[in-house]
């Protein structure tokens, strides 16, 4: 093989080419460091669009298990979107148990305190018996909220070390112009995997595995002898951990069903070269047989854009060996049955294919836990995996936290 087979390492001499330790993927103490040094400090994609909460009083609740927090995102009567902790300031009861809806305000079911949809405390039951309640300062505890291209993010740091805008700056050209506003939620999925979040995510950061893990589900795309491993031509690694990887798929014969689906809309596997106008916010123009871009926001969420669809996903860390993979798939607003039927095809392909990945990840995680190997070997095509371990250890160190205490 010539050096053209390994174009990416040379662009990133700082992250090396050697074996990478498995410790960060299997060590429970390392996970504790990640929780404090990474998860608690980042902007978290809520997998929620601003337009999901169009009216005053619309709210959405997400529990972020790894940080033990529950966050309410709510549009106030003043039209502003806010994020607040889902905790009553009286004695700490969980305020809301539904996962969303519309409310004028929130009443706690422990002693009946009432908060408006801007988070202010507006009513205290039997208030006369309290001593000097500082009501203006007893609203729901605030959480930093910001939006980027309509995506709602929160940050749980006291003072975020970076603005959302700055943390997304790498994507201003590559992704920002994508026509997100023309699309709506087509399907949403939640998968529970018994594996570390990184082990789970790593299979979603390279195309090298497709020839094996997806040999059934995308078999029609794997028959090009010149390109059996779909080696990516574009991998961008950013200093703050963000990444963008372009995936291409060789021209392939459509199955009878994909033919039907493609006749009525875009499909997951029928890439952007197929007589489509250039799609802004993608790498389509520069990549032959471009199919989609995986855009990874460090540490664990993505906004992946294709020819006529996008999906947002997150590998929510739960414990060192449990991850929830959540995926929301967006397509142009279906105005007819035909469009809906067409979209169903791609939804099912992606849904089934994700299950193939997650099965492999669970098996791999178990194997790593056995301690049989202490490091993994990464090719130039897997440089995004290397980059992720590099970033994680930059924040958390290369030593197991358990070792520190010995």
């Amino acid at each position: 093989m010539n050096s053209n087979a390994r174009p990416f390492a040379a662009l990133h001499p700082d992250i090396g080419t050697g074996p990478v330790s498995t410790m960060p993927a299997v060590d429970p103490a390392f996970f504790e460091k990640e929780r404090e040094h990474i998860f608690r400090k980042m902007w978290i994609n809520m997998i929620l669009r601003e337009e999901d909460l169009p009216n005053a009083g619309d709210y959405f609740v997400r529990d972020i298990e790894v940080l033990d927090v529950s966050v309410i995102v709510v549009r106030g009567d003043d039209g502003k979107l806010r994020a607040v902790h889902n905790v009553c300031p009286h004695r700490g009861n969980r305020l809301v148990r539904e996962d969303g809806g519309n409310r004028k305000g929130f009443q706690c079911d422990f002693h009946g305190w009432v908060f408006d949809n801007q988070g202010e405390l507006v009513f205290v039951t039997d208030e006369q018996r309290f001593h000097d309640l500082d009501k203006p300062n007893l609203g729901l505890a605030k959480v930093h909220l910001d939006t980027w291209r309509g995506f709602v993010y929160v940050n749980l740091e006291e003072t975020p070390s970076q603005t959302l805008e700055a943390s997304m700056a790498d994507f201003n050209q590559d992704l920002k112009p994508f026509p997100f506003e023309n699309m709506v939620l087509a399907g949403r999925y939640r998968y529970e995997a018994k594996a570390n979040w990184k082990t789970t995510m790593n299979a979603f950061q390279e195309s090298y595995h497709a020839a094996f893990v997806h040999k059934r589900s995308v078999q029609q795309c794997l028959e090009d002898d010149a390109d059996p491993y779909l080696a990516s031509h574009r991998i961008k690694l950013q200093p703050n951990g963000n990444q963008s990887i372009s995936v291409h798929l060789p021209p392939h014969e459509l199955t009878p069903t994909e033919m039907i689906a493609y006749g009525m809309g875009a499909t997951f596997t029928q890439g952007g070269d197929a007589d489509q106008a250039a799609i802004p916010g993608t790498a389509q123009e520069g990549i032959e047989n471009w199919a989609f871009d995986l855009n990874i926001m460090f540490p664990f969420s993505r906004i992946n854009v294709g020819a006529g669809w996008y999906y947002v996903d997150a590998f929510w860390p739960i414990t060192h060996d449990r991850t929830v993979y959540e995926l929301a798939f967006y397509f142009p607003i279906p105005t007819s049955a035909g469009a809906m039927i067409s979209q169903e095809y791609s939804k099912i392909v992606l849904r089934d294919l994700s299950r193939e990945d997650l099965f492999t990840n669970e098996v791999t995680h178990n194997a790593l836990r056995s301690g049989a190997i202490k490091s993994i070997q990464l090719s130039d095509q897997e440089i995004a995996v290397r980059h992720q371990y590099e970033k994680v250890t930059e924040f958390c160190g290369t030593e197991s936290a358990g070792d520190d205490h010995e």
Partner: protein
Amino acid sequence: MTMSSGLPENFKHLEPYQGWAHSTEDGRMRQRLEATMDEITDYYRALLPEVNNIANHLQQWPLDAIPAAQKPLLFMALMFMETAMCVEFFHEPDVPEALGAEHIEIYAGRAEQLVNQSG
């Protein structure tokens, strides 16, 4: 979920398959996993030539105004997409070597909500 009143005129011959007309993606996936490969193949073959016809027929209504009597046709076309995966790729009802379906939750998208809220 399933209408007992029969299918529209041009699709009477699909009536034996009305039991596949689930209104949610979750319901359709679970039915697929419970079916045998023979049943799935039979359904796939019956619907393959009809999916475009169903789409064309339903084109006369916006998604949120499809009459109740017509909805089973839409659901059957959506179910066809489940069975296509089995017939064209997996050769069995479930995904081989995959995370178990009991570990997945499926939520409705906008279109599914529109269809199921109306009529």
